[in-house]
Structure formats: structure tokens, C-alpha cells
């Protein structure tokens, strides 16, 4: 019973991810494409839930769905082309080759990765129980402290860069 529900949930999330990804690439309307992206992010959050990592799943929803995609939305609203209709990207008629190349470039890494995983995958582990939040924190500040600090340095640099860009533009006006 439990296995069946899990498989059904897996299928649902997979469908959500694929459908969302397709919508993100195919929709002419930028906002609809963004909705596709959000669907994909939701699907990934669901996958985290299935892997007994609810903390990651909720963080995915909180950060990516609640904040990042909302910021992308804001960017779309601010960058409407003068004269053109907002949120529409012109799609040139020369479609065939572009479609083919994009499918190829998308499938290539997927095929390679899938091949490696199929060939050398370790047997599936029994589902672990949820890792308590405190242990997660200990891991981040213990064995992985260097990676943790490096990520925060990257974020600080990005933030400083954003402030710098903002100031320069203000001077120009």
C-alpha cells in the first residue's frame, strides 16, 4: 500500500517537473513560462519530500517558489519592452533547426548521466528516516564548514556587486 502511494506520488511529481519544464521552454508568454518553472520547482520539492528530506523540500518552496520566482516576476514586470506587448518574446519563424539543436543539447547530458547511473548505480538504499534538523546543522558547521563558508562568500560578493551596479546607474542619471 505504502509503496503504491509512493510510486503514484513519484509519477505525479515527475509529470509536474517535465510538464513544467516544457511549459517554461515552450510558452511564448514570459509569465506563463515562469509558471512552468514554478511547477518544476514544486515537483522538485515533492521529490525531496519523497526522499524523507522535508526540511530541504520546505526550503525549496520557501526560497525558490516564494522568493526567487517572485523576484523573476518582478524583473519581467520591470523590463517590458517599450512599445511591444509586455511579457511576450518574439519567436522567429526559423524553428526546425533550433528545436532540433535544443532537444539534442538537452538530451545529451541526460543520456550520458542516465547511462552512467544505469551502469554503476549502487543498489537502492532502504528509505532512511528523517534526519533531525540539529544533525543537519552539525554537518554544515562540522565536516562541511569550508563549503558552507565559501557559499556565503559567493553570496556576499554577489550582493556587493548588485549594490555597486545600483550605485553606478544612479550616478549616471
Amino acid at each position: 500500500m505504502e509503496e503504491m502511494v509512493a510510486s503514484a506520488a513519484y509519477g505525479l511529481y515527475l509529470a509536474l517537473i517535465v510538464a513544467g519544464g516544457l511549459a517554461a521552454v515552450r510558452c511564448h508568454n514570459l509569465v506563463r513560462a515562469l509558471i512552468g518553472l514554478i511547477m518544476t520547482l514544486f515537483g522538485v520539492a515533492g521529490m525531496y519530500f519523497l526522499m524523507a528530506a522535508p526540511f530541504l523540500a520546505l526550503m525549496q518552496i520557501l526560497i525558490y517558489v516564494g522568493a526567487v520566482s517572485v523576484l523573476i516576476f518582478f524583473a519581467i514586470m520591470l523590463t517590458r519592452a517599450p512599445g511591444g506587448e509586455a511579457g511576450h518574446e518574439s519567436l522567429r519563424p526559423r524553428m526546425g533547426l533550433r528545436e532540433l539543436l535544443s532537444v539534442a543539447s538537452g538530451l545529451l547530458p541526460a543520456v550520458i548521466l542516465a547511462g552512467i547511473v544505469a551502469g554503476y548505480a549502487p543498489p537502492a538504499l532502504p528509505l532512511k528516516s528523517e534526519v533531525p534538523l540539529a544533525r543537519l546543522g552539525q554537518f554544515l558547521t562540522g565536516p562541511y564548514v569550508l563549503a558552507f563558508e565559501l557559499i556565503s562568500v559567493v553570496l556576499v560578493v554577489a550582493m556587493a556587486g548588485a549594490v555597486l551596479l545600483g550605485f553606478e546607474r544612479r550616478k549616471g542619471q
Partner: protein
Amino acid sequence: MIAQLTAWLMHPLGHMIAALAAIMAFVGVNGLVLVYMERKVAGFIQRRPGPYEVGPQGLLQPVADAGKLISKQLATPEGADRLMFWAAPILSMAPVVICFLPIPFSPLLTGMDVNLGLLLILAFSGLNSLALCLAGWGSNNKYSLLGAARAVAQAVAYEIPLLLSVLAVAFQTGSLNLSVIAQEQTRGLLSWNVFTHPLAFFIFFVASVAETNRSPFDLPEAESELTAGFHTEYSGMGFGLFFLAEYSYMVIVCAVATALFLGGWDGPVLPGIWWFLAKVFGLIFVMMWFRWTFPRVRFDQLLNICWKWLIPLGLLNLVVTALMIKLVR
């Protein structure tokens, strides 16, 4: 029969279904109660009786309002993105049910005892700003779009002090489970977190007023400038769902504030549930009181309050809390 029923309720699935049904009923009734309360509070603050004609003391007024809303035609504006336009009110309302699940109304009366309950509420309540964006964008109306742009800037900015103030309490308790946090505060009045974290409570309450788009932070729907902001184009239950969602989010933030800071169900004599509800509706009353006391802030003031005051104060509060915990232990 009753034994069977309790056995079914003890099963996690049965418990969850019962909880969801109870939550939906509560959300509906709560909408009616808060509409009446809002109009009466507004009336008395402005020295007029408020709704008076329908039913004794106007008690049936919200029922009449609801009947009117339900029976109205649903119109889609010309040139609107039909899919997004109608997805928005649903997306605004749907997460409400999930947000109610981890709230501990009393030690027994908790929808679902989740270890990450606080995070669950914060994550899913963030979807509301997305819904406002969709509503503003899909309406094909400049007022709606302006309202949506304001909603985004406001929601993203005020989420940070909200998280910072919540984190301070989570640090102290060492848990994100709302039931555990509330349980920790049942050792007398002085163990309530509002006395140990007064600054965090202040920041949380101000940020949550802003997150629920209540006055004085109601810029996304500012009637005097934007007609009705993001829900200008919505008629009937499209508007009704936004309205219901707003009132439900008010209850959610006040319930979280009660569980985090005001001792949850703690109180003498009466059973816990009544104390919890009394504190929640007390906080909601304060929110309504705000609405008729403070004028609406300007947009630059709104962002300045957040970035220059609330966030630095929240960070300071967090650092001091961490330091105190380190020193005490």
C-alpha cells in the same frame, strides 16, 4: 459506534481528513465572523453603530454579504489572460488549508504534529504573494499591475524580518514544532516568550501586518490611489476568495504569534482552546484597531521601515539571543 469513530480518528489518515474538514469549516465561519468584527470595530472607532439593520445588531449582515458575493456574475476582463486570471484567487486560497494544519489550538487539537511546522507555514504562506502577482498580471489593468508590483516588493522585503524574529524564538526552544514551542511556555505567565523576546514580538507583529497587506501597509490595494489594486477586476467569488484568504492569513499570523510569543493555549480555569482563540482574536482586534489609527505609509517609508529598522533590529536581536543562549548553557 463511538469507539469505532475514535479508532478511526486515531489513525493518521483519518485524523488528517477530519482536521482538513474542520479547518475548511473554520475558514468559512471565520470569514463571516471577521467581516462582522471588522465592520463593527470600524464603526465604533468612528463613532457610528456599524451594520445594524440585518438581524439583531446586524449579526446577519455578513451572511447577506456572502449571499451577494456568491450570486454575482463572474466576469473576465477583455484582453486578460484567462488561465492566470482565474488561477490567482484559487492559488491565494489553497495554501491556507495547509498553513492551518500545524497550528496547535490546544495540546490535543492540532491538525498535524509536524516537526517543521513553523517552516511549513512560512513556506506555504509565501505562495500568497505569487497569487497577487498572477492576479495583477492576468487582469490586464494598470492599477492591478501597480498593485502587484507593490505587493511583490513589500512581501519580499518583510519576509526577512519575519524570519529573523521567528528564528530567535526557534533558537531558544531548539525546535520548529509549534506545539513544542507552545508547550515550553506553559510554566507560568513569565515563561511566555513575549517577556523574553519583546523585540522579536514587536518585529514579528509589524512584519506580519505588512505580510497580510493590512493597513497601514495596505499599499497593494490602496483604494484611494489604485481603485482596489490587484483585485480591481475581480467580481463575485473571485474577489470573495481573495477576501477570505486575507482573513484566513490574519488568523494564521495571529495564531503563530500566539503560539510563538503569547504562551499558546496557556491560561487559568478555562480549557486551552478558549485561551488560544481569545489571544488570536485579541491580536486580530489590534490589527483592526491599527487600520483606523495609522494613515497608510508611503512606499519609500514602507521600504525604509523594513530595511533601515526592522532588519537591523532583527539581526541584532538574533545575535544577542544566540549570545545569551551560549552564555547560559
